[in-house]
């Protein structure tokens, strides 16, 4: 491999400026999204799509003439695409090619896009003729995957991806053939989104839900944003609440007057069901390991639910503040976390409760900064009493990792 440059940050935005005429838009889009995933699966990179405005990586199609590119293409065949190296971010495809997906005919958009993204991330051409980064296109491969030389190159630039899934989760990984997405809502910005739900899921993975999308939160960064329905088939977006119970291995999702149940990513038979004995349009849900019950929240009230017994709800809802002292009404999300504490989220802030379900000193704190690895907020939003290190505004992720260090140390204090 050859290294030509590198981005100083690892969380990049991208924007698809136009589409090829030879593929249905959702097929072309799925091919481009999959191209990003090849790289985000092997390196600690995240790619977030933006629908308007500036983006770090900008993908577009043009032909022999172009108003914004000095390098014209040459019609069908020969040069298929080109890209600038970091931190320029432009990726151009020859619109005169027959772009295809899932066939040996034409030129496979997903493979060429993955190659050009390799350049946009800093890789040059590889000497291995079977490598993705080889200069010459060797045709469609149905079970395409990166060559070891491609992986070695990207990891030389950005390090290895910290394995956040153990092998037993491999089989529950996203299907490699991109799901044909229904028209998803706009992709949220984890740094500014008020969460729909948070869940400590199977095998200790933390999931954040917003709109049609879900992403994982780890102490080394955020996972890529996936459509909720790409992971939990049949589940809608804009959820009210999500909760995983280690006692039953069930995951319950709530939206409106319905409840869905999954085991891992497989929906349980007979679901979704109608919510009858608790109110619809819940705000949040959590599993409390101390008494192994599921708590449902709405407005100022809560329900305590025993998944395996018939619960008498006649005395519910009960006042939240009677049991969870110091938390806000109408939380947007809640969860019990692996540190044994309970977290409530609302707006841009979160509250941490100790084992006695009392909000701890120095809370609320900023969710984006302490959970979503976002740039520190301006000092005036640093919550009073919080021991979050005030930081300069607008500092970007820098290669020396000062911000990353700051963020991770703040995050460490949260995680600890």
């Amino acid at each position, binding site marked *: 491999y050859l290294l030509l440059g590198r981005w100083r940050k690892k969380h990049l935005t991208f924007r698809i400026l136009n589409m090829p005429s030879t593929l249905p838009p959702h097929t072309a889009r799925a091919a481009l999204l999959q191209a990003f995933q090849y790289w985000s699966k092997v390196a600690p990179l995240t790619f977030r799509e933006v629908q308007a405005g500036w983006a770090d990586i900008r993908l577009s199609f043009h032909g022999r003439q172009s108003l914004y590119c000095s*390098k014209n293409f040459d019609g069908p065949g*020969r*040069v*298929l695409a080109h890209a600038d190296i970091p931190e320029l971010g432009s990726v151009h495809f020859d619109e005169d090619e027959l772009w295809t997906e899932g066939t040996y005919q034409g030129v496979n958009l997903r493979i060429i896009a993955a190659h050009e993204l390799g350049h946009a991330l800093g890789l*040059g051409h590889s*000497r291995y*003729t079977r490598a993705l980064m080889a*200069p*010459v*296109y060797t045709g469609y491969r149905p079970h395409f995957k990166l060559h070891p030389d491609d992986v070695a190159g990207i990891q030389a630039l950005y390090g290895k991806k910290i394995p956040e899934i153990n092998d037993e989760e491999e089989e529950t990984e996203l299907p490699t053939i991109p799901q044909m997405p229904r028209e998803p809502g706009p992709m949220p910005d984890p740094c500014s989104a008020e969460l729909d739900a948070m869940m400590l899921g199977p095998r200790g993975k933390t999931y954040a839900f917003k709109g049609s999308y879900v992403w994982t939160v780890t102490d080394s960064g955020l996972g890529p944003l996936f459509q909720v329905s790409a992971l939990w088939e049949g589940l809608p977006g804009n959820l009210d609440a999500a909760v995983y119970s280690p006692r039953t291995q069930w995951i319950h999702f709530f939206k409106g007057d319905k409840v869905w149940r999954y085991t891992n990513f497989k929906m349980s038979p007979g679901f979704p069901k109608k919510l009858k004995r608790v109110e619809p349009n819940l705000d949040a849900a959590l599993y409390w390991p101390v008494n192994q019950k599921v708590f449902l929240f709405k407005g100022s009230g809560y329900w305590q639910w025993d998944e395996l017994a018939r619960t008498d709800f006649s005395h519910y809802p009960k006042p939240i503040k009677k049991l969870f002292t110091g938390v806000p009404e109408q939380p947007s999300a809640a969860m019990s976390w692996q540190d044994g504490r309970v977290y409530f989220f609302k707006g841009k802030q979160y509250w941490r409760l100790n084992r006695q379900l009392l909000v701890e000193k120095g809370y609320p704190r900023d969710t984006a900064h302490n959970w979503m690895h976002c740039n520190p907020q301006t000092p005036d939003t640093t919550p009073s009493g919080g021991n979050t290190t005030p930081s300069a505004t607008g500092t970007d992720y820098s290669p020396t990792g000062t911000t990353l260090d700051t963020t991770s140390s703040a995050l460490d204090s949260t995680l600890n």
Partner: protein
Amino acid sequence: RALGPAEKEAAVDYLLQYGYLQKPLEGPDDFRPEDITEALRAFQEASELPVSGQLDDATRARMRQPRCGLEDPFNQKTLK
């Protein structure tokens, strides 16, 4: 068979475009035969073709393959 000037020119353009040949910074514009031979050898080696230094059929066929528009860093001399 003897190659026409157009085929030779197309091959030199390819070697130039993809970094196998380096335009001389000063002096005459045309390339010395040994530079072209060396560039062809570098291209043939990187393409896993027989390294003949000649513009043979296999080499010309490979130059017609669809590819990425970025240069190749396979000629150590031009890479430097």
